[in-house]
């Protein structure tokens, strides 16, 4: 390699290099030979001139053209950086010193070096001697092995420079360095090097924070905390350098048993996570969350008694975000942590490529799930679908891979439901199979009544913030994005005690072009379960009968199920998420229904259309008439002014592409945090939400502008005083009456005089009564409806009685008048 060194610095480096007689000397100190006292010795330069002793010995007038020692530390940039990096690796925490690297680059670019071909000219002779050495037994093989190790290190180093922008080198230096490194002739292909991946560099650390506490895992809360001492609930966090990716640390609780925790609220709960290491200028270390690119911060407010959480939520790193590593002896590293790291390293050494993911299960299931979960942030969003195809398309490996995630609803239910030929395929499933296999699958009937047990309760939270909950979750999201829809529009809703409105609401949306209804029912006690059952049996809707446990939001669980697990929605290009007191409308002069409106929207790139809400106030039925006899959209015609709605007037409902979603709120779709949705207003403009309600973060639920012209959602929150009373009493304890403020709000809208009008809901669905009649004629529907009516009447009687005894006065008395009640003294 010296044959490329054809330049040198003009002047010799001050310190001389020595040839000496071995005998008189005891040692060499700072380059100066040391002899015992009383032993005289003399030194001379190559030209015979005496050299004065000193540390280091200096030659008075060195002749650069004479005999010298050539310092070849700078054979190439690659060499120089590699030497620096290997020095760091010896300390088990590889890093590059920015000053040293900058100095090297300066020298590399130095224009004032003078040509000197001494080494170049001597190279052929050296080469002959080298060949003689290589002919000795074992030398050629050892040389080859050493070259492989060098290549492996270079591969790691290059990857590190390319992937870790905060690897302690300023961007400008790093960019130059990387370009030079890539330019320097590579000695072999990376493929060969991968086979000889380096073993070294597996440092293990604990981290102390800015106030001297130590990073711990809180086993009870399942999160990172800064604590001063370990307890049964707080164990010191263990950080392991990933050998093939030295810029990454694997953080886990240093326990033999898996101790799952999250790095940030809503994030994945797993026993080990990858964090990216960065460096501060003073050599301390920062931890960066991979998906969010935010830094871990240990605010100095932890005390020995109160460990403080360490959130990963800072955009920049300063003192609180820096940590000091303390190496941990191998004996304190549990077997589990080592095995887990080994599996993860094997996965990351090659990408992680689809092949590596599948090959992982060949070595057994132990820690395969941990490794895949940890590696997930490194898998590009765009390749999740391809990976899902690879996993799902490989019957042998794929099934074993998914089996290593016991209890995971995506591994157990969502992915198999999309793919398994053993399951009767719904149309949506068939279409993914079609994509995977290239063969169309036959559609099969699906059960119209399905029970969601408590085992799916975790869907309420999983993915709600857009983070993946597990590797199979990410695969399912990738797989769902691939399904080609066969139909246009479905509707997803949660219903509770909506019996009186159900037929009208279904009829309206059927007339508007909704092809399928997925209704999640929970806690119905107005007899509407029977109505849902009859309608499901008649094939009008799919009833997802939710049995969520206490503390679980049925609405969130429903949306998590619909857009995370349920395959059926994928057969529809669009899903309208709406409640049973809301009726979507389009401008009937422009569109003959929602599908036509969506076709018009689809001329632009669009993943979700936000519809503004038109809120209609209450209207009392004529004396002696029953509100339940007339459809709510026909009774309530008073369009409330924005003044009566406050910030709620800006709330939207959305029609979104189900294949692009992972979850939803009642107002807007949620996609995974690595993707973006194209959100539009009903007018086709970008849906902007820069001005949230005071005190709230920006949220697509609140539109900046109201564009209800082309399409909107008519909202009937009250109906009439009696319906309002019913809705307020939904899920309430017996005897619990609406508060006086609620009553005042109701009375204010009732009293509003400056109301507008909007008759689109009438003009969009002209055959409403006939459609309701068609539904009512289906087997069992009329009987179930009568049951609902009786249950509602019974409950209303109780609620009216309670209202009369509520002791309301002032304007609340007006409500009693509306209800035709006289106050009863309690």
């Amino acid at each position, binding site marked *: 390699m*010296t044959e490329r*060194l*054809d*330049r*040198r*610095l003009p002047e*010799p*480096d001050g*310190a001389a*290099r020595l*040839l*000496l007689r*071995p*005998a*008189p000397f*005891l*040692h*060499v*100190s700072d380059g100066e*030979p*040391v002899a*015992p*006292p009383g032993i005289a010795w*003399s*030194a*001379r*330069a*190559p030209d015979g001139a005496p050299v004065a002793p000193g540390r280091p010995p200096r030659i008075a007038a060195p*002749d650069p053209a004479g*005999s*010298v*020692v050539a*310092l*070849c*530390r700078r*054979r*190439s*940039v690659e060499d120089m950086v590699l030497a620096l990096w290997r020095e760091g690796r*010896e300390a088990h925490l590889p890093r590059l010193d920015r000053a040293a690297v900058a100095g090297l680059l300066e020298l*590399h*670019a130095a*224009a004032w*070096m003078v040509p*000197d071909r001494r*080494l170049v000219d001597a190279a052929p002779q050296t080469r002959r*001697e*080298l060949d*003689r050495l290589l002919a*000795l*037994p074992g*030398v050629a*093989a*050892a*040389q080859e*092995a*050493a*070259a*492989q190790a*060098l290549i492996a290190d270079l591969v790691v180093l290059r990857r590190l420079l390319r992937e870790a922008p905060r690897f302690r080198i300023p961007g400008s230096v790093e960019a130059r360095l990387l370009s030079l490194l890539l330019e320097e002739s590579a000695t072999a292909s990376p493929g060969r090097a991968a086979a000889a991946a380096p*073993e070294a560099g597996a440092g293990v650390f604990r981290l102390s924070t800015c106030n001297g506490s130590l990073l711990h895992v809180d086993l009870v809360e399942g999160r990172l905390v800064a604590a001063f001492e370990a307890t049964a609930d707080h164990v010191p966090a263990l950080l392991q350098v990933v050998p093939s990716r030295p810029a990454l640390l694997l953080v886990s609780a240093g326990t033999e048993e898996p101790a799952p925790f999250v790095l940030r609220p809503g994030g994945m709960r797993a026993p080990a996570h990858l964090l990216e290491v960065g460096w501060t200028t003073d050599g301390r270390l920062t931890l960066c969350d991979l998906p969010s690119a935010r830094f871990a911060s240990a605010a100095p407010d932890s005390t020995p008694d109160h460990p403080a959480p360490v959130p990963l939520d800072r955009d920049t790193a300063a003192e609180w975000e820096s940590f000091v590593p303390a190496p941990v002896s191998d004996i304190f590293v549990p077997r589990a942590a080592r095995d887990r790291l080994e599996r993860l390293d094997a996965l990351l050494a090659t990408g992680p490529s689809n092949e590596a993911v599948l090959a992982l299960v060949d070595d057994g299931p132990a820690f395969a799930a941990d490794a895949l979960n940890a590696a997930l942030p490194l898998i590009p969003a765009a390749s999740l679908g391809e990976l899902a195809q690879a996993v799902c398309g490989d019957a042998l490996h794929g099934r074993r891979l998914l089996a290593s995630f016991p209890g995971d609803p995506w591994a157990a239910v969502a992915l198999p439901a999309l793919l398994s030929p053993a399951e009767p395929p719904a149309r949506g499933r068939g279409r993914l199979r079609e994509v995977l296999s290239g063969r169309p699958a036959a559609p099969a009937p699906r059960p119209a009544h399905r029970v969601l047990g408590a085992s799916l309760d975790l869907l309420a939270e999983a993915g709600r913030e857009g983070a993946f909950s597990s590797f199979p979750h990410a695969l399912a999201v990738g797989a769902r994005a691939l399904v080609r829809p066969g139909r246009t529009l479905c509707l997803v809703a949660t219903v509770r005690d909506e019996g009186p409105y159900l037929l009208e609401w279904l009829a309206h949306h059927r007339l508007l072009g909704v092809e399928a209804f997925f209704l999640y029912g929970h806690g119905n006690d107005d007899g509407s379960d029977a109505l849902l059952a009859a309608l499901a049996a008649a094939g009008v809707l799919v009833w997802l009968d939710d049995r969520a446990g206490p503390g679980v939001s049925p609405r969130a669980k429903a949306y998590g199920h619909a857009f995370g697990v349920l395959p059926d929605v994928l057969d529809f290009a669009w899903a309208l998420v709406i409640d049973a007191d809301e009726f979507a409308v389009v401008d009937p002069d422009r569109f003959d229904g929602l599908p036509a409106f969506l076709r018009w929207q689809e001329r632009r790139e669009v993943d979700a259309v936000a519809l503004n809400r038109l809120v209609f106030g209450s209207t009392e039925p004529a004396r002696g008439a029953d509100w339940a006899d007339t459809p709510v959209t026909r009774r309530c015609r008073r369009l409330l002014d924005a003044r009566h709605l406050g910030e709620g007037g800006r709330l939207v409902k959305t029609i979104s592409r189900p294949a692009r979603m992972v979850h939803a709120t009642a107002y807007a779709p949620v996609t995974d945090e690595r993707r973006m949705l194209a959100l539009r207003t009903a007018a086709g403009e970008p849906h902007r939400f820069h001005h949230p309600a005071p005190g709230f973060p920006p949220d697509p639920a609140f539109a900046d502008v109201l564009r209800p012209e082309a399409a909107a959602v008519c909202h009937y929150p009250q109906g009439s005083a009696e319906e309002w009373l019913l809705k307020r009493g939904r899920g309430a304890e017996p005897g619990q009456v609406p508060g006086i403020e609620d009553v005042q709000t109701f009375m204010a809208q009732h009293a509003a005089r400056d109301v507008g009008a909007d008759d689109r809901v009438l003009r969009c669905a002209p055959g409403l009564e006939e459609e309701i009649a068609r539904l009512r004629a289906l087997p069992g529907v009329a009987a179930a409806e009568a049951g609902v009516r009786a249950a509602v009447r019974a409950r209303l009687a109780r609620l009216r009685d309670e209202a009369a005894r509520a002791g309301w006065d002032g304007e609340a008395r007006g409500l009693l008048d509306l209800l035709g009640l006289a106050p009863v003294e309690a």
Partner: protein
Amino acid sequence: MARERLALLLPDDLWASRALPRLGRWLAMPDEVRHERRCGPELAVLAEAGASGLPQSFAQAVNAAARRLVAPRRQLCAVAAVRDCGPLLLEWVAHHRRLGVEHFFLYAPAATGSDGLPRGDDGTAGLLAALAGSGVVTWIATAVAPEVDPSALAHGHALQMLADVLDFRWLLLGAPDEFACPDAAHPALPALLAPVPGRPFDVLALPALSFGPAGPGRGRRRRRRAW
């Protein structure tokens, strides 16, 4: 006889118990050399002992005096601490063999660390084992704490503990990235070391010059293209 008594008398003294007995053995059988040696943690003290010039013990002074009496039979050897130089080491050995270095005493970390666990290897150990097997080099496998300066240890060990170097008139203090370059008049190093009548010397100091790759040339070309 006196050697054995000294060793018995001073069992904890490195020079009495190790250096002097070794020297004696080597003097008795100078051609029976092992080309793989181990320098364990007990010898780490050699990185500093003697660096001041003042012997730390009586036996150390005796050892130094004894080494001065040995008559060398060969001309030139090299001593170097090598680590993390991987495939580049072989070129360095070839270069200096061409220049007349007859044997190399190379200090490199053992394949297993001082804790007995395998250390991260860049291939140096395998290469040294192969070269030592053929007698080209003597590999002194060091197993000392990381904070011990490898060069200082090599120098202290070679000049006080290693008897084999005494068979050479001259010793080159080398490093794997330093290549000796005699001027055009001297094709090899021994010619530089030829005695100058009336001006004996014990140390030859060579100026050190930094060499580098042809970087700026390419850089200039690139810049021109960019303009």
